């Protein structure tokens, strides 16, 4: 047994997190910053933070992840990291020539109270920021919130530093994208193109974290929201925020700053969330939903119907982030499955409100968010009463093997399988991809473990 020390017996834990279902803020800020074209993220703290975050993102995306660090010493921890950051800004603009440096803090620089506004203005006074280039920043103390909070803070910083309202409004809809794969973003952009709606997505990881292999390394890949587009978000007529915990803050800031109204939506995972996304886009962009999308929807419903016998009533345990768990749970329920255990380390009032609503017909379901909502606890629940399927990041493989349970990888990090940045889970096609993965997991498991006489030729 891999997790041989996990038993069904829960104790009243108050302090010890075991096998977390979250990580810390800065990695989210680094990830979000990669979605701006020509942006070099910068970690203001110890070298290890930057190294760990780059490694985690590289393992997940299997793509280059570039970022700088202030390389704090004990001296800078005592006297402040101002000199380090000023030096870093000079070095990075000289050697790596980004359009924008996106500085985020760490628990170290936050604890000593480094003032980024003052440090960046010092760099500016010293003429270390070349004409037309930018240094933006956000605060991401690791001891507040989670990686999701860091993503949210970075996206809000884009709005704060770039979005500008001019008298000329444009017939464009902003799409503030929550934490998802470039494939998911690509699919959402495809849907908006099919709808013939004009949109600006920010951040945008397509053509950044799914870049082609052509023999030429580009430190700043072709994708990412351009700074020009980011400025124009202030002139758009409306914003759709996809994922409450990742983008609501940015949407509110954009409303306050540029008077661009917004609507919060779930990330379009599953047909219901996709329906809502398309209807909202149709309404606000004033474009019809074409027949081709009704057909895409119909194909997904057809696939679910073909698979229904295997999905109905299946108990599922999930862990991950609120913004993806909410539509995912809704999708599972809409396929008559039973998400019985749902865990996220990210505190979220929205999650806490949505779960009882989505799970109202499954009285045995348990969910938990925030501190001590970890995978150890979820595993203990599984030990108490098993599940038919696990959906979550790579750390689930240890539970899957110990409990001999089918497992579908979803979320961050997926360090042990390729392709998740290529195949979408959003939209109707992404829904179909997800149904296929679930069915393959069930049936491959069944075919390998059932009695010989039970091996079936047909579905």
């Amino acid at each position, binding site marked *: 047994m891999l997790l041989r020390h996990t038993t069904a017996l829960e104790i009243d834990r108050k302090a010890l997190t*075991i096998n977390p279902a979250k990580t810390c*803020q800065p990695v989210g800020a680094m990830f979000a910053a990669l979605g701006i074209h020509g942006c070099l993220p910068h970690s203001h703290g110890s070298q290890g933070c930057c190294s760990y975050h780059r490694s*985690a993102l590289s393992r997940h995306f299997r793509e280059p992840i570039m970022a700088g660090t202030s390389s*704090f*010493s004990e001296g800078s921890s005592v006297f402040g990291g101002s000199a380090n950051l000023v030096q870093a800004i000079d*070095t990075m603009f000289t050697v790596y020539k980004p359009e924008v440096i996106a500085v985020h803090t760490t628990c170290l620089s936050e604890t000593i109270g480094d003032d980024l506004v003052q440090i960046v203005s010092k760099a500016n006074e010293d003429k270390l920021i070349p004409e037309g280039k930018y240094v933006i920043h956000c605060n991401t103390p690791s001891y507040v919130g989670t990686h999701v909070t860091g993503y949210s803070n970075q996206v809000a910083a884009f709005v704060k530093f770039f979005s500008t309202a001019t008298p000329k409004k444009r017939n464009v809809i902003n799409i503030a994208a929550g934490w998802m794969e470039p494939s998911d973003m690509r699919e959402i952009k495809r849907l908006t193109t099919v709808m013939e709606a004009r949109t600006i997505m920010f951040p945008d990881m397509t053509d950044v974290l799914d870049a082609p292999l052509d023999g030429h390394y580009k430190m700043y890949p072709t994708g990412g929201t351009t700074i020009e587009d980011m400025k124009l978000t202030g002139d758009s007529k409306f914003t759709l925020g996809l994922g409450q915990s990742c983008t609501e803050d940015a949407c509110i800031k954009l409303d306050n700053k540029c008077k661009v109204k917004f609507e919060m939506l779930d990330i379009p995972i599953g047909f219901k969330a996709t329906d809502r996304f398309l209807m909202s886009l149709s309404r606000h962009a004033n474009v019809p939903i074409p027949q081709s999308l009704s057909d895409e929807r119909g194909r997904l419903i057809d696939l679910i119907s073909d698979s229904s016998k295997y999905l109905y009533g299946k108990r599922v345990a999930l862990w991950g982030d609120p913004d993806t768990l909410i539509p995912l749970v809704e999708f599972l329920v809409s396929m008559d499955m039973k998400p019985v255990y749902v865990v996220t380390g990210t505190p979220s009032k929205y999650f806490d409100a949505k779960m009882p609503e989505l799970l109202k017909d499954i009285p045995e379901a348990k969910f938990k968010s925030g501190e001590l909502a970890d995978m150890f606890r979820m595993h203990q629940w599984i030990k108490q009463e098993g599940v038919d399927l696990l959906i979550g990041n790579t750390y689930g493989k240890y539970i899957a093997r110990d409990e001999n349970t089918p497992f579908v990888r979803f979320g961050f990090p997926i360090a042990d399988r390729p392709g998740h940045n290529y195949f979408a889970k959003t939209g109707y096609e992404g829904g179909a991809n997800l149904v296929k993965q679930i069915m393959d997991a069930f049936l491959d498991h069944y075919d390998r473990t059932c009695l010989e006489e039970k091996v079936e030729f047909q579905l």
Partner: protein
Amino acid sequence: MEKKIKKELDLTNFTDEVVAAYPSKVGKKRAKSIVINDPDSIPKIQANVRTIPGIITQRGCTYAGCKGVVLGPTRDIVNITHGPIGCGYYSWLTRRNQTRADKPEMENYIPYAFSTDMQDSNIVFGGEEKLKQAIREAHELFHPKGIAIFSTCPVGLIGDDVHRVARQMKEEFPEVNIFGFSCEGYRGVSQSAGHHIANNGLYKNLIGNNDNPTRKHKYAVNVLGEYNIGGDAFVIEDLFERIGVDIIATMSGNSTLEQFETAHTADFSLVMCHRSINYVAEMLETSFGIPWAKANFIGADATAKTLRKVGQYFGDQELIDRIEVVIAEEMETVKTAIAKAKAKTEGKTAMMFVGGSRAHHYQELFTELGMETLVAGYEFGHRDDYEGRRVMPTIQIDADSRNIEEITVVPDPTRFNPRKSEEELAQLKEAFDIEFNEYKGMMTDMKKGTLVIDDLSHFEMEKLIELYKPDVFCAGIKEKYVVQKMGIPMKQLHNYDNGGPYAGFKGAINFYKDIEMIACSTIFKQMKAPWENEAFVTAEYVFN
């Protein structure tokens, strides 16, 4: 057909090429870390100095060196990270140190991450109470024999005293060995400071606690600085079982508390990764009289040499004979494997930038494949890892290294027992050229005119590849996909790209196969679409 190294490269201009691109002060500093090697007159290289902010370094932090590298691979200690959630999360199962607890009742905490998950209130009001409570909960849930506490950056800043907490909790749970490490990320200049802090902690809290090791054979050694990445330590254990020598402690791949506690009963310490564990080797020598020698199990010849060293050290003809039998058995398959791989690899070039020993060790394997290492460097090495321990007295200790605790080690009053007299050691050196308590560094084994670069930056890596186009580039996960986007095969030498084991004879064969695979892999030839390779004659249909 004997292929020649494909190009006679002149690497001397590299320093000028890169230095010019940096801000002038930065360039001056970097120039000292880039040297052209001459094994006959080893030049001085700048190493183990603080990385310039913003330069994009490979390096990590002190916590990573202490918790991630040295203590992480031990399977029966509950390692609690005291800090916000990230540090514990990123060091959770990310280093591929395999563990095998053969029986279900044996402990294995490796698949678990334990953290106090400090929140802002803990930063403001202190985190010691939460840490104590976390230890109580770990005890209640798991009843481990040992609990270790690892400090992250904010812990040192807010003044939480993890050592005091450890003492207090030990009073509460006297049967559990509880100890802490002040391995905040900002200490030192790289992972290296964490290794040193971990070594000190092992000596203070574990080594020497138990005089009754589990013994099977007449002779016993320690294998130090072997972390069982991809199962390397398993291969080494198997070899020692076959030659009939006990390994008392492997530090620290698949290790247990008992192994650390009894390490002082071994008669000889073999040091694999000099950088990360040389302090423990020294302490075992000073305190208990156990000599150490540099060992290398990376490469078939190197493995044979290391095993022979063990035979020569103990001077027992039966042991020597057994070792020769094992070497002869293994070398037969090794030779076939080399011949097969070499047909594809001979004459090719490699560059490697890893660790504090790996960039040296893996040159052996490439040499066996007929490949030349053009450029190499460490991520967190010191000058002694490059130039040899002879330079240690001349190394200037700067402010970044001065704050790492130096512990005073004295001979143990009752258990100090020199395993070999000075004369015996001198005889062994004379007869077999075994260097005791010595490491000659990487540069002595590299050819004249090769390039050595410490703490390589991203910019320098790009330039190296652009200018010299190696056939394989070796580094870690952060470099992996950058290099491959340039169309150059990349071999990770931290996690072996999920391959390995690479140690010993069997490991060497795995490595030959993997490099042969890289040399034969065709996908990089497909980077251009056919229509991009040739001029198309275009024509148009005319519809009317």
